């Protein structure tokens, strides 16, 4: 079913919207959530909550891309799940993710509260396409370096080296944008 038809089901408050969304994007959403929570149960809970959140938000929201919209919801719910659940914190890959990202902004930096996403988007636009994709796969989708290595036909060492350089460049960029002292 086309995305526009599924969005139409959401508008009609038709519960088939959930089953159709799950048929089309369920695997993708569970993958993202499992990457971030490290738990199949947690992933299942986050995906169910994602469909309910979409059902509550559409209408009035009209997503331009249903795929991106659902991905964003499940990712944010998974990060929230990770923060709340102690068992998830022990298992989740979110821990190394946050640790890697902590290098970019020092903990005590008094940086502006707004505009961080826009700055990251500007930084990504200036990066080469392959680096940009690598960054998004790692820090949005939560893919492990091992999975990225398989996807890109590179070694894990090469992936880690690239991500390290990307983080360094992002740190420099955000510093110039006033997000770090």
């Amino acid at each position: 079913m086309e995305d526009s038809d599924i969005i139409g089901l959401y508008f009609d408050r038709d519960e088939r919207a959930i089953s159709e969304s799950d048929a089309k994007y369920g695997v993708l959403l569970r993958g993202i959530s499992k990457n971030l929570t490290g738990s199949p149960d947690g992933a299942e809970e986050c995906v169910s909550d994602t469909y309910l959140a979409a059902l509550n938000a559409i209408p009035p929201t009209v997503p331009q891309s249903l795929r991106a919209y659902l991905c964003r919801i499940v990712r944010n719910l998974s990060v929230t799940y990770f923060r709340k659940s102690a068992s998830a914190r022990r298992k989740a890959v979110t821990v190394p993710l946050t640790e890697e990202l902590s290098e970019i902004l020092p903990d005590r930096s008094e940086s502006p509260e707004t505009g961080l996403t826009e700055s990251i988007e500007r930084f990504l636009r200036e990066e080469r396409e392959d680096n940009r994709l690598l960054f998004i796969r790692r820090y949005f989708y939560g893919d492990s370096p091992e999975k990225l290595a398989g996807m890109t036909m590179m070694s894990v060492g090469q992936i880690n080296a690239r991500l390290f350089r990307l983080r360094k460049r992002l740190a420099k960029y955000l510093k110039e944008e006033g997000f770090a002292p």
Partner: protein
Amino acid sequence: MNGERLLSAIGSIGDSFINSASEENVCRIFRARRFRLIRGLTAAACACAVISFTIPAIINGRPPVNVTVPESSVEASDSSAEASGSAAVSEALQESETTDVSAEISEAASQGGDPASADPQVSDEEPPSDMSEAFQVSDPTFGEVTSGEEYPEFTDEVRLGGWIFSLYSREGDENAVLKVNWPSQAGTLYITVYPSETEYIEYTPCFSQEEGKAAVTEHTIAGITAESYITITVVTGSGETIGTVTVYPTIHR
């Protein structure tokens, strides 16, 4: 904690970023990039071979030795045929970050950087000028396929570029099986079954294949009768149309 703050901020990036980083697209981009790099390095290796034969001869005051570099290997090295080896290498180096290049150069060299061992069959990357050449029914055992397996029951082996198609059909069974041997290149197959004009699209974004071994996929094609034939158009991951071939099923009796 600022790590979590950044993680949340990345969670709000725009739709275009999220959609562009689909698994299929990531595979396609990196595969194309790797292919360009290897192509550039092979061209450079050919150019170096010519120079290494020619310059000593000139220095020694003799006319240059008549060196024959397999034309097919040069063509396969750079289909645009305008970039010299050094230009191709510098382009490849610019594309790649320093630490990545060394590993990929050695890997590429081991895969075929030696011009002396250049295999003329790499010209399979080029679309055949005459489609009748592409339609070759040969040994039904997939003789040259390096998948490590044999499929003696498959017939009608048809080649197009680096792709090899083989079809298996049985009398009374409307489901035929199309076996595709892929080169190390992602691509899309547009398959149409005639006379019903049923269309299939098979996209294969990525293989976890071993180095130097071709990947084989199978596709079920429904609605095959004794009068049926299928056409297959191959479009590479980078959008280049390789060509179209026609495969006629052999109904086994």
